[in-house]
Structures are given as C-alpha cells and as structure tokens.
C-alpha cells in the first residue's frame, strides 16, 4: 500500500513538474497570475455600461436559479417557455449573452457562495477570467512564433499599457473580445496542421462571437492572412481557370460550430432565432454615432477622420512599447513578404513561420483599420481596436528580446546590463499604468507630454464616467441625509451599484435634473461639458469642491449646488 502511494505521489510530482516546465503549464501560470492581479486591483469606478451589465448578469443568472427550482418541482419546461426566456434574458439584448452569463456565475460562485470578492468584483471576475485566458494564449502565441522570452515579455508589456490594463478590469466586453481574438488567432494557426485545432477553432470562434460582434471581423482577417500566405498558390491553369489554394478547414468549423455556440449562449434568441438574433445584428449595423473630440474638433457624424485610431494609438501606448512595437510590426511584415517571395520562387507551400508572420501582421492591422473607415462610429477611446494590442505587445517584446541579445554581446559589460534594460522596458510603462491605475483610459503618452498635451491638442479627455468614484467619499462626508446627487455620466445602475457596494451612502438620492440636486458631478467630456456650464450658471460660482486631475487637467469635478440668491422684484 505504502509502495503504491509513493509511486502515485512520485508520478503526480513528475507530472506536475513536467506541466510547469511545459508551455501549457507556464501559460496556465501566467493566466492565473493575470486573473489574480486584475482581481486584486479591480477598484476602478463603475463605468456607464457596467451598471447595465451588472443588472443583466444578475437577471440572467436568476434564470438558472429558477431552472433549478423548476427541475425539482417537475416543471422544467416552464424555464424554456417564450415568456420565461423573454423575461429572464430580455434585458440588454443588443449584446451577446456569453460574458454576462459568465459574470453571473462568477458573481454567484466567488461572491455569493465563497465570499472571497465583493459584489462588483464578482461580476467583473467573469470578464477578468477571460482576460487571463487571453494572457495565456498571448504567451502561447509568442512561444509559437518566437520563444518563451517573447511570450512572457509580450504579456508583461500588454498589461503595462494603461488603456489595456484599465479595460481588462471591467465587466464589459472589450477585454474579453481582445482575449478571444488572440485565442482564435492562435487556434487558427494551429489548425493549419492539426484537425483537433480545426474543431477547437470553430468552437472558440463561437465563444468569440458570443462575446462581442467584433468577432465577425475575425473571419475576413483570418482569410486575408491565409490568402496572403498562399498567394503563390493562386494561378491560372493551362485552361485559363483560376486555381485557388484550399480553403482552411477551420473556416468550415467556424461556419458550423460558431453559430451553434452563439445560439446556445444567447437564450433570448431561442424562441425566435431569426428575428431576435437578426434584431441584435441589425442594432449594430445601424449603431448611432456618438461625438468625439479630435484635435479640437467635435465630430458628431460621418465622415470621421481616417487617422483617428492610428493617431490615438500613437499617443496612448507608452513609448517604450510603441516604438519597438512599430518596428516589430514592420520586421514581421517584412518577414512575411520575404516568405511570400520565397514561396513564389520555389513554388512550395509557405512555412508555418511565414503563415504566422502574415497572421500577426494582418491581425494587428485590421482592428484599427476597421475603425478608420470614415462611416464607422469612433466613440469609446481606444477600446474598440484593442484586439490589436496582444499582437502589438508581442512585436514590441520580440524587438526588446532581440535588443537584449545584442546587448549581451556588447563587449564584456553588455551581459550585465541586460537586466537593467529589461527592467527599464517593463517599469517605465508599468509606472505610467500605476500612475493612472484607476483612470487608465484617460492616459496620453510621453510623445504629447501626457494629459496636458492631450488637453492642449483637443483630444478626448475622458468618457464612460467611471472615475467619479474618487469623489464619492467627499459626498459621503458632506451631504446632508437624503441629499440629491446629480451624477452626469454615471447612470442610475452605477449609482445603485456604488450604494450596494458600500461606496456611497444609501440615503443619498439619484437626481437626474441638475437643478434639483444638492451635489453635482461633472465629467470633462467635451460633448457633455454643458453640464458643468449649467452648474456655473445655476450657482454663479465656478469653483468645484474637488476635482480628479492629472498634471492639473481635470477629468471629473464635484460641485456643491448652492443656487445664486435671486431677488424677485
């Protein structure tokens, strides 16, 4: 008995050691570290949409609880009736269900049952878990295309970017779709050589499209990258017929399995798939245009400037990631082109390295290119083309790792300076992230000298209303019982969530009419700046009680509303 126990123990030990020495093991470790790190620092204010998603996740999850009760009561069918599904999943149907279902379960498990996280973090954990998976696959992609050093450094640089770090905490879809983009891209790359990954690609794309509609653009992205890598195989036959390379099997898997996964995770669409899922896509085809401030011009309708996503990336990614990232992208593109030329010359199939180079080149370019199209709505800062960032971070990491190798060969002392260089590369952007930790979406990089430069150039200073959280303690301290608070870009659901999470006194009232409030938050968002002007007119005083500022530039201000005394005739 003792012998078999020690053998078993030894095997487990060996398997564990093998796992942690393997890339799979390291990727799991990276994923876990990212999840733990993001969860521990999820103290950002609730952004506008989170209030809606908290509510949706709660309502969706209630359906599972009802399902459980119905199961034991012998009336399971009731849970699947049109009326029940419409009631349970009829809120926030303009976004897919998967992430919200996951948020509901993470809330139930980690907040309600285990009690290890707070109410809001419980919901956010669903999204954070997906970001952990994305980090793991970023590492795996880095290893596949380059090596472990690039993989690890790529993940570090990705989360050292303030915008990425900030959005990765939120109970929203931008972090998860960034994660799923890199997951699907990795799976597609593997699917070119493994039928198992063909199936996996179909299923994972299904998860991606059930995360956010951006996943639809992954299909042309993958096809374009694949087509470019197989360009040498496009040829005219002697009969003047165009001979095409074989369509990758993963595309068929995507076509078959993807919609299935989407359908399963969108219960609102179960009773009437065509009309309800059609309505969801129709909403995004006709999405309203939001205003955006760009170089001092407030754009409210198309055509929007083509340069917007490229310029915004150039001034919001820390310089130490930006410059190597651009160089890395150029080098990989060059590598892809060379592989293509070789394939033309030798009339052979392109190597995996060449295919990977095309895949990365295209994957980093398409997300901003879509937003650059002048009729596409460009609200939301940089988050809408954030799926480019894992690839971009890997490009940067590849250049840095190559630089470290070069440095190691510089005379005798080069080797000793490698850790210093690495530390600078990671710590400089990490410090920027630390500095703007709770307001990362407002960050502008060194090139334009930070927030002051962004404001001076008339760039979008803020959006989404999350950072009012820093001013809530002051309201809690000063407000009389039952005082009304006008919260501007913070919506009612967020207000209620702050109260639920103990960040705002429960006796305070949400007031949507500024003139009836005792306190007003005003966010410095150009298109909504008039709220602050209304405060000035109402009180005759332009002094806020307090503001959240970066280098003197305010992102949100708190006013006490004492109306100016008027003497009636």
């Amino acid at each position, binding site marked *: 008995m003792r012998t078999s126990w020690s053998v078993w123990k030894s095997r487990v030990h060996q398997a564990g050691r093998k796992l942690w020495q393997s890339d799979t093991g390291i990727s799991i470790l990276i994923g876990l570290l990212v999840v733990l790190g993001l969860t521990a620092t999820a103290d950002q204010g609730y952004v506008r949409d989170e209030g809606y998603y908290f509510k949706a996740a709660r309502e969706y999850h209630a359906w599972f609880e009802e399902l459980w009760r119905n199961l034991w009561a012998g009336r399971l069918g009731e849970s699947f009736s049109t009326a029940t599904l419409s009631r349970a999943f009829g809120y926030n149907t303009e976004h897919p269900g998967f992430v919200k279902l996951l948020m509901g379960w993470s809330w139930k498990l980690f907040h309600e049952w285990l009690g290890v996280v707070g109410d809001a973090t419980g919901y956010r954990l669903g999204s954070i878990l997906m970001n952990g998976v994305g980090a793991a696959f970023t590492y795996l992609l880095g290893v596949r295309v380059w090596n472990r050093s690039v993989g690890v450094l790529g993940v570090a640089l990705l989360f050292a970017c303030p915008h990425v770090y900030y959005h990765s905490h939120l109970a929203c879809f931008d972090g998860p779709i960034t994660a799923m983009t890199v997951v699907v891209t990795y799976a597609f790359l593997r699917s070119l050589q493994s039928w198992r990954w063909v199936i996996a690609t179909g299923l994972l794309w299904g998860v991606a499209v059930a995360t956010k509609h951006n996943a639809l653009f992954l299909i042309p992205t993958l096809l374009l990258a694949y087509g470019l890598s197989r360009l040498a195989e496009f040829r005219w036959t002697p009969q003047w017929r165009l001979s095409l390379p074989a369509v990758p099997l993963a595309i068929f898997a995507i076509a078959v399995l993807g919609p299935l996964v989407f359908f399963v995770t969108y219960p609102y669409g179960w009773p009437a798939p065509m009309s309800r899922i059609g309505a969801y896509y129709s909403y995004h085809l006709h999405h309203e245009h939001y205003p955006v401030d760009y170089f001092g011009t407030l754009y409210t309708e198309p055509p929007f400037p083509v340069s917007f996503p490229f310029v915004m990336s150039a001034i919001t990614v820390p310089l130490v990631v930006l410059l190597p990232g651009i160089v890395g992208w150029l080098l990989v593109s060059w590598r892809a082109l060379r592989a293509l030329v070789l394939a033309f010359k030798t009339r052979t199939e392109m190597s995996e390295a060449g295919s990977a180079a095309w895949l990365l080149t295209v994957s980093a370019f398409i997300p901003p290119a879509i937003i650059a199209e002048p009729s596409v709505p460009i609200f939301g800062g940089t988050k809408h083309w954030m799926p480019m960032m894992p690839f971009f971070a890997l490009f940067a990491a590849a250049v840095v790792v190559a630089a470290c190798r070069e440095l190691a060969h510089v005379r005798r002392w080069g080797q000793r300076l490698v850790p210093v260089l690495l530390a600078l590369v990671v710590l400089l952007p990490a410090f920027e992230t630390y500095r703007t930790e709770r307001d990362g979406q407002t960050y502008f990089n060194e090139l334009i000298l930070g927030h002051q430069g962004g404001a001076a150039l008339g760039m979008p200073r803020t959006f989404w209303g999350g950072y009012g959280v820093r001013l809530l303690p002051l309201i809690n301290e000063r407000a009389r019982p039952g005082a009304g608070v006008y919260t501007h870009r913070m919506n009612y659901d967020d207000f209620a969530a702050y109260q639920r999470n103990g960040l705002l006194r429960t006796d305070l009232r949400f007031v949507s009419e500024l003139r009836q409030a005792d306190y007003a938050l005003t966010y410095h968002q150009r298109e909504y700046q008039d709220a602050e002007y209304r405060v*000035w007119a109402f009180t005759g005083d332009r002094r806020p009680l307090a503001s959240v500022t970066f280098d003197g530039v305010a992102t949100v201000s708190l006013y006490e509303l004492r109306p100016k005394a008027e003497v009636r005739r």
Partner: protein
Amino acid sequence: MKRWPHLLVVLVAVGASLVLSFVRLSRRVDERDLDAAAQALRTEYRDGDLVVVTPYYISGPRERLGDLPLLSPRQLDAADLRGYARVQLLELDVTGATSAFRELLSVQAQAQPTATFGRVRLTTFVRIPSERRRFDLGEQVAALQVTAHYADGLVARCDKFERDRWLCPRDSSWSYVGREVVEIDDDPRACVWLHPLPKGGELRVVLPDIAFVPNAHLIGGMGFAASGAKRVQAPVQVRLFAGEQELMRREHPAGSSYTRYDVVLPAEPVPLTLMVTSENNGAAHFCLSLSTVEAL
C-alpha cells in the same frame, strides 16, 4: 550601430521616454504656487476687474478663483474685455501654453509689473480707456418682464419665476428666459436663454430701468448652444428698441458662430425692449448676452 539595430530602437525608446517624462513632470504646476498666485490676485483684485486664465484646461485657478468674474477661454477676443477697468491675467507655463492672451492684452491695456510664482505668472493690465459695467442682463434676470406673443394670437406673460428664470406658459422646459452658460463657437459664454417661440411668435423682454445709461454702450453677443447648433432650422432675428426707436436689428444665422454687437444708447431715458423671433424655432437653443457699459 548596424550590429545592434534592435538595441538602438529600444535605447531610443527608453531614452525618449525618460527625457519626455522628465519634461512632462517639469511642466506640472505646484499647488503651493497656485495658492500663492491666487492669494496675490485676491489682494490685488478690485470690483470691476476681470480675471483671465490661460490655458483653459488647467483647472487649478478656477478652483481657487471661480467666485470672481473669470474667463478661461480657448480664444480671447478684445470684445471680451469690454466693460472692465482692469484685467488680471494669470498665465500657467504648462504644455501647450501660448503668449497669445498677453499679446492681445498688451495692445489693449497697459501692463503692470508681473509677479511670478513658480510656473504661474500674474500680471495686472489697466485698460485704456477704462470701462465699467452698469448693467448685465444675466445678473438682473429677476428684474426682467417677459411676454410671449404666440403665433396663434395669444399674448401671455411669462411670469412664473423659478430660481433664476422666467417660465413661459407653453413648453416651459425650453421656453424660458434665464441665466445660462453655454458653449458657443468653442467657448463657454455667460448669456440669457432666449429660445424663440414656435412659428414666428415673438418673445419680448422689457429691461429694467437701470439698464439705461445715457449715451452708454450696449454690448454683447449671441449664438446657438453648440450642442444643438448643427440642427438649428432657421436664423433668429433680434431687435432692440429704445422706446419706439429701433436701436438694433440683427439676424443671427443658423450654425455655430457667435455674433457680437455694440450700440450706443440715446441721451434721453427710454425703456429698452428686446424682441426675439424665428420663422422656425427647431433646435434654436439661442442665447444672448447684454451689458450696459460706460467709459470711466
């Protein structure tokens, strides 16, 4: 460096990041300097002064001095200085700061010695000729008499006063006369909301007697709030009467521009009346400022 191309890229990035971060940090204004400058300004401040702060995106000066007449615009126009005896210019030497305001003021007024507090500069400019504001429409909203002459023939007093605005009987959520600050032509402007009535109806505002000062100037500007300026359906006509005499007739075009005016009042005291009309009042979030200004 041909042997170390990647290293060169990374070193340039790291070096540039360090240098530019240092520059960024050096451009921050110390809170103590702002406190000292604000204190000095309050000591120097007199009734009839205007405080001008530049650049507009640094909020510290407004947090300290926002109870005083204060402008912190993107663009400063000489007309913005009308009606003030002196201008206290507070300049912050931060990223994007320019000397445009100082240059404008140097032409318009005589500069006193500048006091420097770290990255903050305070200069008093004495305007020549000096002026003072005897009346401001926004400050005296409660003393106005407002009447709505609707297109269907109904004439009704807008006599419900709510804090700082007169509400008209129909559609009072937007049909009122009250103090506002709205963005017009890229800058926040203090003005009085005068949304025209539907279908060519006439909004009539009788100014209090104190608005009239013999031979003084009536100055101000008008425009549509930026939030709706692109949706404005038709121009707005503004007429100003001194008794029976029409002193001013302006048509402000649809769009985001700001129209300024300057008219001279007659010598004999007469009641002043503003009349605002528009053929189509759709999205006409119209706002007008008016001050009586006399030379000192």
